[in-house]
């Protein structure tokens, strides 16, 4: 009976102030969706880091006219190097084959390239991927070596973009979140004001503080959870229509690891939990310090 009383109070309260309620829920939903996107990007970046950093290679490219003897000399050095875990030699022909394979959809490009124009290289895997710089320094200036390229550098550019997107989403989430909190506080003030008679009588006859405040706090929590549901649906929509739709090819290529459904689903309990707790605390603080219900 008490649960029923409280629930009906919550619904009536939200309905009485329906424009405000909608504003509150929409703001919360946007904030939470941004927070969810930010978290997904964060997971994505750490997934990708894990995926790629185990495969990272440093390529030592030779000059086009490097002699076999010069390359062998470097090869001996590579083989003996304690910084290098594994190595692989790629001849000009192998490099050309790989090039053909990689760009088979662009035959003009393949036709324009000659096997001789692609350099031979050593593909080496550092013992410690974080310390590839030492390898680069060591081999860069050597005779017949044209260039030393760390794949990590290329990936870091991508990660920087992701990190930037993640931060942007987080900033939007925080700003919208603040707006949502102010709306929650305002909605509760309005609700408490419109129910001040009931509240005064409740206090007079000795209703516990919990009983007086619960409907207001639950109103905020309820709106927060609805906001979280909307945010979750938004993320699902983005996953279906944008990530698996418009940008499908990008995510199916080897460049980006896919965003798994499990991560998207994980967002719901996280967002609902955050929304519920934050709304409840805001509601409670509002009641306690602003209107003394």
């Amino acid at each position, binding site marked *: *009976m008490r649960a029923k009383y409280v629930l009906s109070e919550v619904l009536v309260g939200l309905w009485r102030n329906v424009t405000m309620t909608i504003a509150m829920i929409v703001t919360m939903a946007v904030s939470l969706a941004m927070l969810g996107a930010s978290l997904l990007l964060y997971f994505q970046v750490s997934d990708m880091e894990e995926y790629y950093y185990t495969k990272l290679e440093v390529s030592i490219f030779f000059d086009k006219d490097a002699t076999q003897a010069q390359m062998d000399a470097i090869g001996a050095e590579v083989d003996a190097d304690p910084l290098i875990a594994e190595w692989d030699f790629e001849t000009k022909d192998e490099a050309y084959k790989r090039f053909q394979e990689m760009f088979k959809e662009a035959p003009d490009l393949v036709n324009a390239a000659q096997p001789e124009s692609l350099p031979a290289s050593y593909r080496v895997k550092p013992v410690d991927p974080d310390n590839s710089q030492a390898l680069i320094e060591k081999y860069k200036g050597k005779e017949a070596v044209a260039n030393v390229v760390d794949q990590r550098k290329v990936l870091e550019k991508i990660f920087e973009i992701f990190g930037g997107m993640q931060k942007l989403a987080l900033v939007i989430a925080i700003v919208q979140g603040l707006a949502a909190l102010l709306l929650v506080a305002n909605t509760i003030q309005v609700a408490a004001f419109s129910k001040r008679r009931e509240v005064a009588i409740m206090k007079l*006859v000795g209703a516990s503080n919990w009983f007086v405040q619960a409907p207001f706090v639950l109103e905020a929590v309820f709106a927060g959870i609805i906001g979280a549901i909307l945010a979750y649906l938004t993320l699902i929509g983005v996953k279906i229509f944008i990530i698996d739709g418009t940008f499908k090819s990008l995510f199916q290529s080897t460049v980006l690891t896919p965003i798994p459904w499990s991560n998207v689903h994980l967002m719901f309990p996280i967002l609902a939990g955050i929304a519920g707790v934050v709304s409840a605390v805001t509601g409670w603080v509002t009641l306690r310090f602003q209107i003394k219900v």
Partner: protein
Amino acid sequence: MTKKYARASRPSIEDINVSIDKGEFVFFIGPTGAGKSTIIKLLLREETPNKGKIWVNDKEVVGMRSWRVPAFRRSLGCVFQDFRLLPTRTAAENVAFALEVIGKSKAVARRVVPEVLELVGLGGKEHRYPHELSGGEQQRVAIARAFVNRPLVLLADEPTGNLDPDTSVEIMRLLDRINRTGTTIVMVTHDSNIVNQMRRRVIEMEGGHVVRDQSRGVYG
């Protein structure tokens, strides 16, 4: 005991010392601004004094933890000049509300509410809304609500202030009956007729001081 409001130049109540026995019927009288209503607020612990102590039902109220206040208030009943009924609820629902919000079950409400409404003389009008009732009847609902938890003390702040003389007399009869069940009644009023008719203890206040305390007294 002294109560001083933050912005007031002088205390609303200053150095008063009054003791009221269980089962007594006491009038606080005096001109507006004498501090009568402050007494009710202090007894309800809506306000706390700046100095001094207050005992109600053997409980010290001033130092009471705020979370104990709701339980304390359940031992009090309270009636006001403006009735303070919920306009969207019927007479019976208004009374039941007081039970509901302190966690009593519906079954208890169904049993107790008609009983109390009968007692205050509203039998048959349970399902009327406040606007369908006269002032006197509304005050009866308020009294029923105050009395439904069988409080030890009933506080009444000018309960007849909005009522005509005849209705006021009826309300006083009702309060008198409640008093006879052993409930202490503390009533603030400046209705001289009522005070003179009832011949109960009268405490007169002026400028925050008690100027007269007389058993079986009359209005000034």
